[in-house]
């Protein structure tokens, strides 16, 4: 019984039943498979998070985002007070997470790749792109650069999914994706 000492003192020599051995073998191979699946996806898959990260002072990052907005601003996002920014395809795109907003609203083209910079001005935030359901953690002091390629047009929302204090549930952002060549 499992609540008593093993009945034979030399229990490590007892034979293991075949069924048990077979399952251990299957389980071990399945583990190996799942391990190499992650490596395989790095080689062949298209959804891998970049590891390109730089240390940045939060106020310095805010200035970079402001300069970016000034350069590519094409108007306002309705009457929300948010600037609407349309950077050229392939360029560096900046998004600022801060209490409690993602700033500014971005307009991207479908099928084009962008180098999206993510960082926070204050606390940790969660970049959760919906309804795509793509989630990346955002830290203050770390500038994370992710190459992203929208595959569908429409209005997408960014939701903060890292708890960031009293106004956490108001913290959203927006990314507009338009057909190539439109909207600029």
């Amino acid at each position, binding site marked *: 019984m499992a609540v008593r000492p093993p009945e034979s003192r030399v229990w490590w020599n007892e034979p293991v039943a075949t069924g048990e051995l077979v399952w251990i073998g299957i389980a071990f191979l399945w583990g190996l498979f799942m391990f190499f699946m992650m490596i395989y996806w790095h080689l062949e898959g298209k959804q891998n998070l970049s590891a390109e990260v730089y240390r940045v002072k939060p106020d310095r990052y805010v200035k970079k985002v402001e300069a970016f907005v000034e350069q590519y601003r094409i108007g306002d996002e309705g009457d929300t007070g948010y600037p609407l920014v349309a950077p050229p395809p392939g360029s560096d795109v900046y998004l600022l997470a801060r209490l409690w907003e993602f700033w500014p609203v971005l307009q991207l083209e479908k099928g084009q790749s962008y180098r999206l910079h993510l960082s926070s001005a204050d606390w*940790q935030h969660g970049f959760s792109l919906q309804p795509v359901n793509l989630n990346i953690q955002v830290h203050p002091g770390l500038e994370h650069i992710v190459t992203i390629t929208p595959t569908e047009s429409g209005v997408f929302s960014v939701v903060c999914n890292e708890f960031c204090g009293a106004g956490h549930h108001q913290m959203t952002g927006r990314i507009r994706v338009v057909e190539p060549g439109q909207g600029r």
Partner: protein
Amino acid sequence: MATAAGEIGVIGGIAAKFRTCPVTALKIDLAAERLIKANAVAAVVFLAIGGVLGLLVALTRWPAVHLLDSDTFYMVLTAHGLNVLLFWIIFFEMAILYFASAVLLNCRLAAPQFAWIAFVLMVAGALLTDFTVLQGDSSVMFTSYVPLRASPNFYLGLILFAVGALIGCMVFFGTLVVAREERTYEGSVPLVTFGAIAAAVIAVFTIASGAIILIPTWLWSLGYIGHIDTLMYKLVWWGMGHSSQQINVSAHVAVWYAIAAILLGAKPLSEKVSRTAFLFYILFLQLASAHHLLVEPGLSSEWKVFNTSYALYLAVLGSLIHGMTVPGAIEAAQRRNGYVHGMFEWLRRAPWGNPAFSGMFLSLVMFGFIGGISGVVLGTEQLNIMMHNTLYVPGHFHGTVVAGTTLAFMALTYLVLPLIFRREVMWPGLAKWQPWLFGIGAGGISLFMLGAGTLGVARRHWDITFADAILSFDYPATAFLMLGLNGIFAILATVGGALYVAITVASVLFGRPVHERNALHALGPLPQRVVESGSSAQVGRHGSEGFGHLPGTYTLVAVFFVAFALYYFVNWKYLSELWPLS
């Protein structure tokens, strides 16, 4: 009962007050027994507090009810996590450690006065943290990620609690040494004690990680330290936060083996295999900090892949092994008891009317199918992009810690009441249904949060309608349905949880005393056709001897494996449809 009054006698070489258990004939050190009772009572109190808080969380998430205002919701959510994930579980684990050492090894507890100091520190720390959170300015969630800042007493309470738990672990290790020195058992420690050792070793690692990060954070909250790195905090904090869940896994697997042994006379199929599986936990579980850092900037993919897989999934292998050997040991024992017909007579005719058994088996099934499978998927580096910080995460850990650990501990309670508290379980008719109510409730909570998370719903979020947001957004309607169902199953789980607390408290206070006469009866329904009872002269010395062929278990394991593999590949399919990312 002659032996119950407490004789002065000798356990090993040292005089201690003990009684002799009428069921197992073990000598039970009365000091250990009092400590087991105290820790178990504290555990149930914190479970009751944390459970009510959990219901408030679920009722707020239910869009049609939306019970609490936002500030209260974040405060209650913080307190819920602390009370159930930390206080309930660790108090109960202290009781398990004292049980698995002093009681199972037939030994006196080493330094009971230190165990009492541990208990007092843990109670004081838990209360300090709870009161600090309820003051409202420490709603930083269970994880308290910097630079969110709580009151200093928030961290101080946790540090006191952790120091107490560490002392408790040392008393446990000390008792192992005493038992060995005083030769209170023959050969190797029982498998259940071995599992408890695994839990305690992991606990020491866990508490050390907690100290390394919480002490500087406490000093930071007091203003003595200027800056805590956000990424470093998470890396070390999760060395505590995730590894402490592995204490739970080791402990509740040990509990599964213990219940199967006490009720059915089940023996491990192979001591070697089951112990190696526990060893895998000790060797690899600490890498799990990475599970929370898979979409974090600043860590390489090589680091993420190696750590998140526990080095080639070797800790997962440990759980997969237990997932077969626990039902396998039950099947072998039941076949030995005479239930040999067909594939599943052993399971059909198992003592389902005994809440200890039904709770244990439900815990085993749901831990594997819900908590285990979702955990591996969630912990896959790239798949995590679709799940990080969504409700998928609490969906996963309610499958492991609530449907798995908590239900297993509840099941064990139905044996602790007669064996340690020496009281019959009150209202056996209700007790029979309690694990089902709680288990189905917890399973539903897990599944519907997993579903909402798959649809992208953020965790720790007060308002999924985004009513106050300038840039509006709507989750799909199905997500609202999921959260409504989550609320309904949370009510079911609360009914089951309240029943557990009521039965436990009533049994301790008013239950009929257990004597030699009614000792076996007090354990609840047992298999009808027990061929052997306690002795094993006529059967093999290890569980699989003569019963190596276990068709029922093989079938269950095959079903599990197919479900696991299908769900795993479905998620890769989802991922391949995501926006390309590099």
